[in-house]
Structure formats: structure tokens, C-alpha cells
């Protein structure tokens, strides 16, 4: 009789497949040198060896898990839905962080953001907008209601963080000012 395909056995089969793919194809094809190289009569370890060995370990461990099973786990579609939702909120928050400053500068001064990225108040705009949105949105996910008190707390935390990193250290850049 075939053993029941539990989540652990599925994880084991995925590990076997991934390990075989890396060991038999990817590690060799995506490295400049092979497993062992011979240069000027001396042997040395090539760049492909370490990933290949790790991938073989991955396959063997996967085989072990697939054969032996393990403690039952419960990864469900609800978990997948939750993590996708959270990632979407983070994507929007980080988008605000990245583009909030340049948009506001363009709207108010019609200037380019880059020359202003280390000047007050512009250097804080993206971080404060994105950081506040991130904390408030994730709090909303748990509480299922948008409360202004939470938004104010999120704003306070973000302002404190901006001051904590920016005021004492001249060389540190808040996000996203190193990328714009």
C-alpha cells in the first residue's frame, strides 16, 4: 500500500527535486569553475563543488524525510492567503517610502528630489509616510478596525526612529535616501 502523502512527505519530495536540480544542473551550469580544477599541475576546489555537496545533502535529507515522515504540520491555504495579504500591504508601504518623497517634492517645488534628499524636511517624508503606513496597516490586519489612535502611535514610532538614526549620526541615511 502506498504511504499517505502528508505535508512532511511532500516537503521531502520537494527537497529531493530541488537538490537534484541544483546538483545535476544548476551548480555546474551557473558557476565559472567545476567541482575540481587543475591549474599548473595542482588540483584546487572549484566554485561548483560546495553548492553541489550542499544540494546532495538536501536531496538525501529530503529522502530521509519522505521515507520516515515526521511530526504532522498544518500549512493551509489560509496561511498562504494571510502571507500574500501581508506582503501586499508591505509592498504598498515600501512603495510609499520609496516614492513619497520624490512625489511630494515634485508636487510642491517642481524640483528633483535627489539634490534635496539630505535636507530637512524632505529627507524624512518617504520614511515617515511609509513607516506610518506599515505599522498602521499591520495593526489593522490584527484588530480589523482602523483607529486613529493607532495611526498616531505609528506616526510617533516612525518619527522617533527617524530621530534616533538621523540626528546623532551624520553618515547614516534613512530609507529610501540611499537609493534615490
Amino acid at each position, binding site marked *: 500500500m502506498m504511504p499517505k502523502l502528508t505535508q512532511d512527505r511532500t516537503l*521531502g519530495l520537494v527537497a529531493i527535486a530541488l537538490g537534484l536540480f541544483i546538483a545535476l544542473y544548476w551548480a555546474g551550469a551557473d558557476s565559472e569553475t567545476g567541482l*575540481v580544477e587543475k591549474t599548473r599541475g*595542482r588540483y584546487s576546489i572549484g*566554485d561548483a563543488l560546495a553548492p553541489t555537496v550542499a544540494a546532495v545533502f*538536501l536531496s538525501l535529507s529530503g529522502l530521509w*524525510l519522505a521515507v520516515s515522515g515526521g511530526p504532522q504540520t498544518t500549512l493551509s491555504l489560509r*496561511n498562504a492567503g494571510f502571507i500574500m495579504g501581508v506582503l501586499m500591504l508591505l509592498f504598498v508601504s515600501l512603495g510609499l517610502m520609496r516614492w513619497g518623497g520624490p512625489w511630494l517634492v515634485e508636487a510642491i517645488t517642481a524640483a528633483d528630489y535627489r539634490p534635496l534628499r539630505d535636507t530637512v524636511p524632505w529627507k524624512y517624508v518617504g520614511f515617515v509616510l511609509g513607516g506610518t503606513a506599515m505599522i498602521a496597516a499591520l495593526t489593522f490586519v*490584527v484588530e480589523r478596525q482602523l483607529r486613529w489612535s493607532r495611526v498616531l502611535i505609528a506616526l510617533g514610532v516612525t518619527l522617533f526612529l527617524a530621530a534616533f538614526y538621523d540626528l546623532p549620526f551624520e553618515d547614516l*541615511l534613512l530609507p529610501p535616501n540611499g537609493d534615490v
Partner: protein
Amino acid sequence: MDMLDHVWLGVLAVFQGPALFTIAGVPIPLTLAMVAAGFLTGVLVGATPGLAGPMAMAVALPILISVFGFEIAALLPVMGFLIGIMKGATIGGAVPAILFNTPGTPDAVLTTFDGHPMATAGQSGKALKIAHFSSVSGDTVSDIILFICAPFLAVLVERYLDLPEKTALILLSLAFIAAVVGTSVAKGLIAMALGMLAAFVATGEDFYPRLTGGIPWLAQGFSITSAILGVLIVGEIFKSLEDMMRERAATGTIRQTVASGDNALTWRERRRLLPFIANSAALGTMIGALPGIGSTLAATLGYASGKKMHERRTPMGPDWGKGAPEGVAATEAANSAVSGANLIPVLSLGIPGNASAVFLILATESIGGFNPGPGVFRVPSVGVNTEMVLAFGIFTTMVCANVINWVFGGRIMRAMGMMIRVPKQILLPSVLLVTLTAIYVQETSLAAIWFTLGFGVLGYLFRRLGVSVLPFVIAFILAGNLEDTARQAFSATGGDPWFLFSSPLAVVFIVGAVAVTVVFSRRQVGEGA
């Protein structure tokens, strides 16, 4: 001059060095003041979820060097501050691990196993007291051993551990962590292999960054901060947010952690913890003296060994891993005991055992006049070995940090416990922002934030699938070291493919790696049956 003269000169270098200010005519040495300032900074940083000692050391080092300069006189104040951070962050790191299940370092993961269940049972104050008492006790043992044995141990380590033995020792560490932590050895090995594969992306010796598929934004690989904080902190935040959301949907409320239970730590309880602390302190000190291994293996060994002791003795409270005070004590004593002994390979071989030690080496390299290596502990036939004097000066700063820790550490640490009053649904998103900001100011790239979130999703999936995150993290840290040592060992043995079996000690380590995997898998089968 003999060894004792060098020890005394080292002590004097700290206490008779330049004074920062005077109190009632008594000069306060600059180095001592720097140790105290570093310690306070370390506790604050360690207790802030998402921040960790190495991060603060990374930020502090360039500032310290710009203040004190590159002269040899700068070494003790700079090292004093960094050592203060290292020690302060070790005890501070137990705060978020115990209160919120968000460990900032791999060592602290083991503290969460029993510390967090204690906090959820209303005993957060007691767990913090145990963590401090065990940590500072382990640290004291380690510092005493450091002072007494460092020169002899340094010679021994240098003599017996060559490249094949070091490679085999790293493999043993990885096998041990994969086997001991978590509910399944096979899952631990899968996590370990994935951690190594992630670390191998874009590294290696060739010009072409391997395993990147030619994608430009992968060419720098994954930074260690993104990978570790992503899996450890962000993954836990995702899981906790979902748990709270489901709990609220089911019950209409979110359960908050409150300090409502027995939060005192009596002398009787301390006495009952002492065997666990002594055992872990001895293990931590031994592991710390080995090069390139570090505090996480010590914490793991301390935890595993404490578990065996716990089974034999009458426990103080709940089962192991479910809020046992002995579990917190065993882990904290072991990882703190590493910090003193860890200076032996750092100063004698220049090999760091953990991330904090990397910054200590960086400080000595930046300042100059002190070159970690076998020469540090050589007694000269004539005159003074300045490097040995400085080494004992550094040991003195460790002892000073320890005294400060005994006197003030517990109070400062418990004051940090006030964070438990903040509702978790606000605190955890704030911790996420702190973590992402801390990563950005180090990496100055939004790509690092995306990588961190990616590793966070991986950490979330690991938790949902019952895979321990620790083997992944340790494998990620040690993979580069393992590959470099193996490459050197292969070359040094003339391309011998059997270099791992070239000496009896290396064979012992390899056999140990296989044995530990088999023994622990049989035990899990037995427990499961």
C-alpha cells in the same frame, strides 16, 4: 619580564590610563568609563527587538575611531566600549527573546524555548532574573578562565587544530545543531542544506558570481543581516501577527502577556539552578576557546546537556522546552561563557567565533599596533611584549564589564521589561520597522529590505512546517568559513580528496558528526513511537 609582570602591567594600563574626569579628587579612568557606557548601550540595544550587539558595534566602531584616532593609546578605550556593548547586548538580548519570542541573535533562539513560555505564564520577571543570574555567572567563570588559561590554551589550539581538523570541526557543529534543535533531524538537515545554499549565492573565488543566473541585483549575494534577521525576526513577526488575527477572530480579544505569576527568584531557586549554570559555563568556555565555532554551538550544547540533567533531577517547574527555568539558565550561562574564552582564538589566531568578535578584530586591525596572532602570548627573553600587556588590558576591561553587570545589569535589564505592557499588535509591526530600518542604514539599499522580507517569508514557512530556523541560520554563518577552510585544507594536502580523514582528530570529529545525527534521529523515533 615574566607572564605575571605582563598581567599586572595590563591591569595598570586600564586603571592608571588617562582620566576622563575626577570625582572628589579620584580620577575616573577613561577606559573604565568607556566600558560602562558601552555596557549601558549594549543592554539598550540588545533589549530593543530587532537590534543586536554586532549592529551597535558596527555603528559605534567608525565613530569611536574618529573620536580616539588610530594611535595605539586608542585601543583600550575603543575595545572597552565594544566589549561593554558585547556583554550588555548578551543580557539585553534575552529581553525580547523571553517577552516576545523575537530573538535578535541565533543564541537567543534557545532562550525563547523556555523563556517565552514562562513569560506567557505570567513569569516574565522571574525568567529575566534567571537569564541575568545565569548569564553573569557563566560570564564570570569564562573571564576567570580567560585570565588564567588564555596563553596556554592559545598554544594548544594552535598546535592541534590544523586545516583538516577545523573543517571537520565545523561539520560536527553543523551536524550537531541540525540534529539537536527541532523536532526532526531530517528537517534540521534540510534547513542546514538550504542555509548553505543561500550563503553560496554570489560567493566563491571566481570572477563570475555563482548561482545568480547572471541577475545583476543578486551579484552581491545575500547579506548576513538580511538573511539572519529575516528568518529569525521577520518570520516570527509574520507568524505572531497571524496567530493574533486568528485568536481575535475566534475569541474577540487578543491575549496579552502580563507579569501576573511568581516573579521572585529566591536563593534556594538560585542554588538549584547552579549545577545547570556550572555545566553550561564549562561547556561554553571550552567551545569559546575553539576557533570559528562560536556562542551558538555553546548555547545548543548547553541546552542539550541541560536537558539530560533535567531528566535526571527533580525539575523546578514545567517540562523542558515548555517553560523550564533550568532551560533558560542552561542556555544563557553557555552563550555568555563563550564571550570571555572567545577572546583566546580572537587574540591568538585572529579567528572570530561570533559576529561580535569580528568587530573586535576589526578594531585591532583599524587601530594598529596590535596584531592578533601567535606572537601575542610569547614571553620575551628581554623587555616587554607590548601586545601581551594590551591583551591583559583587554581582559581587565572584560572583568570590569562583568562587575558592572553584576551590580547594575539585572536592574537595567528588568527596567527594559516594561515593554511587555505595550500591546503586541502595535509592538510587533514597530519591531518590523525597526528591523528593516536597521538593515537599511547598514546596507543603504532597498534591495536588502526586499531580501529580508523574502527570508522572512521563508522563516514563516519554516515555522508553519515545523522546521527549526536555527540550523538554517548557523549554516548560513558557517558556510563561507567551511568552504574556505576546506579549500585551504585540500590545497595544503596536495589535492588529497580524503583530507577530512588525514588525522585521527579529524576522523573523531567526522565520526562524531555521523554519530550525533544517528543517535538523535533514533531518539526522535523513540519519542514519536
